[in-house]
């Protein structure tokens, strides 16, 4: 069955520190991959996406993600976290119908 796994339920980082959020997927073929962010009481906002080509993709708000086919992973990174980045982050995968399969989410807490 298709699945997306985010191993870390909760992560705490200090403001200004770097961030890495992990995501692994299990699909029949390489799916389309996405990272979404959800702030409290808000909807889902797309941070970045990977369809094909360059395995390092840039997104909004200074985020980037690296796709590794050999590890079935799609890792989200940010060099320096801001307090406003505190939110829940969802990794998702889709096939060509666009139906999204989401990971369980990672809650990011930012310490001042």
């Amino acid at each position: 069955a298709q699945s997306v796994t985010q191993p870390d339920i909760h992560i705490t980082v200090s403001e200004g520190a770097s961030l890495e959020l992990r995501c692994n997927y299990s699909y029949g073929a390489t799916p389309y991959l996405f990272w979404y962010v959800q702030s409290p009481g808000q909807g889902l906002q797309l941070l970045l996406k990977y369809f094909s080509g360059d395995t390092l993709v840039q997104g909004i708000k200074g985020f980037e993600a690296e796709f590794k086919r050999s590890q079935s992973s799609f890792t989200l990174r940010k060099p320096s976290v801001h307090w406003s980045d505190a939110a829940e982050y969802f990794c998702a995968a889709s096939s060509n119908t666009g139906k999204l399969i989401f990971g369980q989410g990672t809650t990011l807490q930012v310490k001042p």
Partner: protein
Amino acid sequence: GAGVSQSPSNKVTEKGKDVELRCDPISGHTALYWYRQSLGQGLEFLIYFQGNSAPDKSGLPSDRFSAERTGGSVSTLTIQRTQQEDSAVYLCASRGGGTSYEQYFGPGTRLTVT
């Protein structure tokens, strides 16, 4: 331009009542999706529309759930005889055609069944 809108933003209903949730997608978007977000189950796919047709209804949890889309635009998700386990945030998303697979989400409808 306008994003995806959903109404109502909050709905409180008594167990056993029927509810209708509405989604207005981005104008011109041909694909529309419904998802449910709950504490115990995370984000789950419910149904996918391409135009007015629903080629994938695999996520609807029971026959109490149904959805329709008219005019290739507005969609309504109906839950009949609501149960407490239906309490969740119902999210709608739309996607343009072609090779764009980005989905744009609405703010959601928070449904509480008492």
